[in-house]
Structure formats: C-alpha cells, structure tokens
C-alpha cells in the first residue's frame, strides 16, 4: 500500500520535474511586431519595430485615443543586439512571426544586406512570408512611424498595398525573404526590391492628427531598387520598373495607354502576360531572347477611333507592342549600362541552356551581361473592348 503510494509520489515528482513551460508564451506577454525597419547608426544598426496595440485594434468600441501601434527603436552593434535591447523600452517580448514588412534604409542596402538577412533567416521565429522594401531618400524608421487610415496598422497597410499593387499595377515587386536569399546566392540573377517613400509632411505623419485629415501624409511605393548581389546599386524609374516586370512575367494586371492618331488616347488593361526568357549560345557567346505574350482589354477610349473595325484593333496591338517593348528595352539598357546588374536572370537562362558555357562565364558575368545582346519580341492580343462597343467620342462625332 505505502510502497505503491511512494512509487506514485516519486513518479509524479519526476514527471513534474520534466514538465516545464520553457517555450510557453502567453498571448498577453507578446509584443506582436508587424513591421521592422533597419537603419544605419554610427556603430552598427538602428532597429525600429512597429508593435500593435491589440486592444486598440480588436475592440469594437475603440474609444481610447491611444495609437493603434507603437514604435520602438534601439541601436546596437549587431542586429540581434539591437533587437534584444528593445526589450529595455518595450515591456513585452518581441514576437516576429507575424512580421509583415521589413523596411531597409537605402544606406543599409548600399552597404550590403547579407548580414541582415543572415540573422533573419537563421532565427526560427522569423518566417519568410513578409515583404521587403527599401526606404527611398529617408530613414527607414520614418516609414514605420507614419500612421495610416483604413488599415489601422501601418505595417499591414504596407503589406496589403504592396500585394494589391503587385497584382494590379506593374511597377512594384513583392519580394519575400526566401526569394531574395536565393536570388542573392545565385550568380545568374540579381535581386530587386521595391522602394517606398513618405509623401507629405513627415512630422504630421507621425501624430494621430494624420489619420484625422482627409489628405494625410502617405506611404507610397515608388520605383524599384536594383541590387548587385546584396548591395543596392541604383534605382529604376516607373517605366523601367514596368519593363522589368514585363520581362520577368511578374505582371498580372496593369494599365497602359496608346495614343490615338488624332489625339487623345486609348487605355488598355493588361489582363494576362506570359514571358519566356530563352538563351542561345553560339561559340561561347550567349544571346537572350525574351518573348512576351500580352492579353489586353480596351478599358477606356478617349479618342474617336472606330473600335468596331478590326484594323483599328490591329493598329492598337502594334502600338501597344511598341510601347511595351520600349519599356523593356529601357529597363535592360539601364541595368546594362549603368549598373551591370543582371536582375532579369539572363545568367540563369544561360545556365539552364548550357551549363558548360555558364561555368566559363559565371565569374565574369557582370561584364558579359553589360554587352549581352537581347532580342525582345512582344505579342499583344486585344481580346475584348469592354461592355460597350463603339467609342463614345466617335459616336458623338457622328
């Protein structure tokens, strides 16, 4: 009897000594970090973390006038140190699994982002499904300090608008961590990251006043930053960015316009694109062939053209082809001449086509890329003209 009792006592003490709650984190002990920004400091990095204030966001009657997010920054010699130091200013443990956006300052990016990425991809708490952006012309921390309307959490706003704009507007690139890492690692392709700007009065943007006005200080994605390996080397403007996305086949939907002969223009909505990058190698001289198939719809006809005439459609197609081709050429020209950074993965195409030649060229790829002949073929097909057939202006003329 007593022996049994003793046995069970020991067993239970043993079991309870096993049962600890080492990894346990209660929800109200977490500071859910939604956005992180990394700037350079005199020594090391300045890390800014945007943390949500759950009760302000979740509750139906958000009566308190407290800000929905709070932003903490801290500097440290390394990223990890800086993040750990944030606990000095934040009462709770930072939790990064729900990170939506990582903003890098231009300085950090020009310096090389591999150190940052190494830490982030090593730490199990960081997932890989957040987007990266580069803050253009200002400290990255400012981006996170700007309050936004509609979406209460600025970081979430950034995430969603990048996601939406990538789907409906071509010049942005929604890039996640693992793609970035594999692009950096690969010799045959260099990464690009979308840039972000704060438009308007920056000091107002950081107060609650910003969400009370109609035309507040805003966050806006602008152009695309070109990287060579892990270092930022320059920017593409909007048209070049568009050209870049066309080449990469990233365009899911966008809008472009074609000028009419008699003035005015026709707006066309791209509904589907498919790009195909092929390399051909003759005697160690690679040549790239980009073929892009675009399907478009007419969205708006602001001039008097006869949309019922098949010839007009043909005409519009050729015009659109020219425009798109010029975007793509601009993008290629700029990267070849100014940056020598192969952001299109032409090297990868060569490697897939002919691994042996690639082995010879890979060490010298930037130079080869700068001289690389690229043939572009664009094939636009207009499918539909919307719900009305003839252009209104044309009808009015008649």
């Amino acid at each position, binding site marked *: 009897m007593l022996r049994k009792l003793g046995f069970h006592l020991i067993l239970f003490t043993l079991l309870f000594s096993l049962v600890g709650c*080492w990894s346990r984190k209660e929800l109200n002990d977490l500071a859910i970090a939604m956005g992180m920004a990394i700037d350079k400091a005199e020594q090391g990095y300045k890390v800014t973390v945007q943390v949500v204030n759950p009760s302000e966001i979740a509750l139906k009657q958000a009566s308190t006038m407290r800000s929905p997010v709070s932003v903490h920054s801290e500097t440290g010699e390394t990223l990890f140190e800086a993040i750990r130091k944030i606990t000095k200013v934040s009462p709770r443990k930072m939790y990064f699994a729900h990170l939506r956006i990582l903003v890098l300052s231009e300085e950090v990016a020009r310096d090389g982002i591999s150190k940052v990425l190494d830490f982030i991809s090593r730490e199990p708490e960081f997932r*890989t499904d957040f987007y990266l952006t580069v803050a253009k012309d200002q400290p990255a921390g400012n981006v996170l300090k700007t309050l936004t309307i509609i979406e209460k959490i600025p970081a979430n706003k950034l995430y969603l608008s990048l996601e939406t704009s990538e789907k409906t507007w071509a010049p942005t690139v929604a890039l996640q961590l693992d793609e970035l890492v594999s692009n950096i*690692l690969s010799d045959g392709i260099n990464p690009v990251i979308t840039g972000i700007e704060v438009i308007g009065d920056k000091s107002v943007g950081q107060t609650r006043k910003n969400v009370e006005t109609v035309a507040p200080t805003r966050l806006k994605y602008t152009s695309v930053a070109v990287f060579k390996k892990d270092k930022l080397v320059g920017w593409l403007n909007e048209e070049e960015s568009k050209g870049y996305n066309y080449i990469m086949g990233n365009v899911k939907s966008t809008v472009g316009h074609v000028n009419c002969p008699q003035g005015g223009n026709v707006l066309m909505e791209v509904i589907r694109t498919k790009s195909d990058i092929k390399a051909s190698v003759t005697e160690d001289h690679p040549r790239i062939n980009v073929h892009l198939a675009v399907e478009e719809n007419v969205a708006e006809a602001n001039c008097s053209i006869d949309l019922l005439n098949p010839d007009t459609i043909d005409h519009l197609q050729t015009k659109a082809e020219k425009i798109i081709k010029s975007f793509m050429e601009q993008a290629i020209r700029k990267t070849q001449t100014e940056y020598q950074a192969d952001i299109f993965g032409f090297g990868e195409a060569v490697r*897939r086509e002919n*691994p042996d030649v690639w082995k010879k060229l890979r060490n010298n790829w930037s130079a080869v890329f700068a001289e690389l002949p690229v043939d572009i073929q664009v094939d636009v097909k207009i499918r539909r003209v919307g719900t009305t057939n003839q252009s209104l202006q044309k009808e009015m003329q008649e």
Partner: protein
Amino acid sequence: MLKDVKLSARQLMILVLIVTIGDSILILPSLTTAEAKQDAWIASIFSLLVGVLVVGLLHVTSRLYPNLTFVEFSEKILGKWLGIVISLLFVSYPFFSATAHLREIGDFMTTQIMPETPIESIHIVFLLVVLMAVRLGLEPIARTAEAFFPWLTILFLFLVVFIVPQAKLENLQPLFGEGTKAMLRGSLTFIAFPFMELVVFLMLIPFVNEQNKVLHSLLWGSVIGGLVLILITTLSILVLGSELTNRTFYPSYELAKKIHVGDFLERIESLLTGIWLITIFFKITVYFFSAVLGLAQILRLTSLRPLILPLGLILIPMSLIISPNIVYFNHVVAKIWPFYDFTYSVILPLLLIATAYIRRQVSQPKH
C-alpha cells in the same frame, strides 16, 4: 519469449514503409542536395534502384533461417562465441541509431519549434512514449502503426497537394549539370538512411505469420517509402531550389512553411510536423525494440522487461553525448554514418550468407 507474437504481412509492410521514411524525410533532401544539387532527384531515383538490391540482400539473409532472428542465426552460423561477438556488434547498431534519431528529433524541435526548451526534456518525454510502446510489445506497436498510417497518408498528401502549385520547373535545370560523381556522392546518404537501415528488420521478420509474403512486404514497403522520399526531395528542389534546400537543415519543414492556399491555409507547418514526429517515433521504437530483443536473446533472458527501462535510462545521456553540437552531428551523419550503415547492412549479411553457404557445402559431402 515472444513466441506467440505474430505480425501480419501488411503490418510488416507498414512498419517497413514508416521506418524507410522516418527521419530520412526530414534531413535527407538537404544531405543529398548538398552533393548533387538540382540533380538530387535523379540521384534519389538511382538510390531507390540500389536500395531495392539492398533490401533483396536482406531478404536473402533472412531466408537463411526464416524462424530465427539475426542474433539467433548468427550464433548458428558463426558458432557460439564469434556469433555472440557479431551479435553484440549488431545489437549496438540499432541502439546507436535509436540514440542518433532521438538526438535528431531533439535538435529539430529545439531549432525549429521550441528553442527555449532544454533538449533533455524533449528526449525524455519522447523516450517515455517509446518505452511504453516497447513494454507493450510488438503487436501493439504494429497495430498503432497501422492505425496511424491513414493519418500519415492524409498529412503527406496534404503537404504534396498544396505545395505542388508552387513548384518551379526551371529549378530542376540543367539536367545532369553536376556530373555523375556528384550524383553518386549524393546518393550515398540516400541509399544508406532509408534502405540500408532496414537491416534491423532481420530481428523482426521471424515474427511474421505469413513468411511467404515477407519479400512482398519488404519490397513494397521500401519502394513506396523510397517513392515518398523521392517525391519530397524533388518537391524541395522544385519549390525551394537546390540552394535553399541544401542551406536549410530541414528542407521538408521549410516546404511545409511555404504552403499558402488562399489566405487561410497557411502557417500550418506545426501540424505537418506530425509526419516527422510519428515516423521517427516508429523508427526509434522499432530500433529500440530490436536492440532490446537482440540483447535479451544474446543473454538468453526469459523476457524483455529487465532490459527495457534500464536501456532507456542509458539512452538518455547517450543521446546527449553522441554529439556535442549540431554541426558535428551533421558531419557525422553526412560523411560517416552511411559507411556505418553499409557495414551492417551489406558486409555483415554477405559474410553470414557466405559462411552459411560454405558450411552447407562442407557438411553436405558431394556426390
């Protein structure tokens, strides 16, 4: 001891399948891809072919004495003392393997899921369930495997179906870009971990009640298991690319992390961890059971019970001693362990078959 324990051929097949997959599914894509890069999937298909040969060899070995375990027939073939030495060596193999696999699960849990939890406590709770299984005996183990099998299948199909849309075919190009030698290097681990480690089944085959179906079970179990591993390796390369696959310790876990269907079916990798945990559980259990059974047969004990808990007590510190850190462990696993497996699953059976053959030749005078 254990004379009335009977496994059905189907249970054997499921056990073989699970042991083939167990732990390999977690670490193998990374190891093979590290050597063979984007051609790892070709290496894995090649490995399956070699693996089938290895399994065939194991089956031939088991046919020497279909009703005896490895420990018993090695004593019969090699004589008492040499047999005992070989048997002791053989028994140490599943024991160390169980240790290594336990360490693997501990490393996996502490790197990916619960970084703050001490590895010892993960080892201990995991081992407690293993010990419970071994104490219950072979039949409940096999039946539990049977009961979990549909769930494993569902989880696995889930992983495959939802990750396939993210596959990028160009990740496989160029075909044969790394050369044959790299592929052979890559297939070393791929032959050793899933297929050669099946040698422990030499301890369990005598308990199968339909001996004529043993070959069928062994082959189907290992081939299906091999196909699963090929699929996972290929998917890792297709989705992650060969660079990321060999850069991460646990590519299939990364694969699960990538699942993203609509905006609701994502971040479910912790659930899919079930595939790894359950298969490794059965692998450790089968190994530990074989070790206990082998030692009991060497010592001619009347039951397994005096060995189970004490050996479990030994296993815990061993799993900590066996590797000072994960880097050393991975080095051992990638570079040394395949040869350790090779010794036990190819050299030892060949030795036994040869000796048995010579013995029979000698004892049967020619006429």
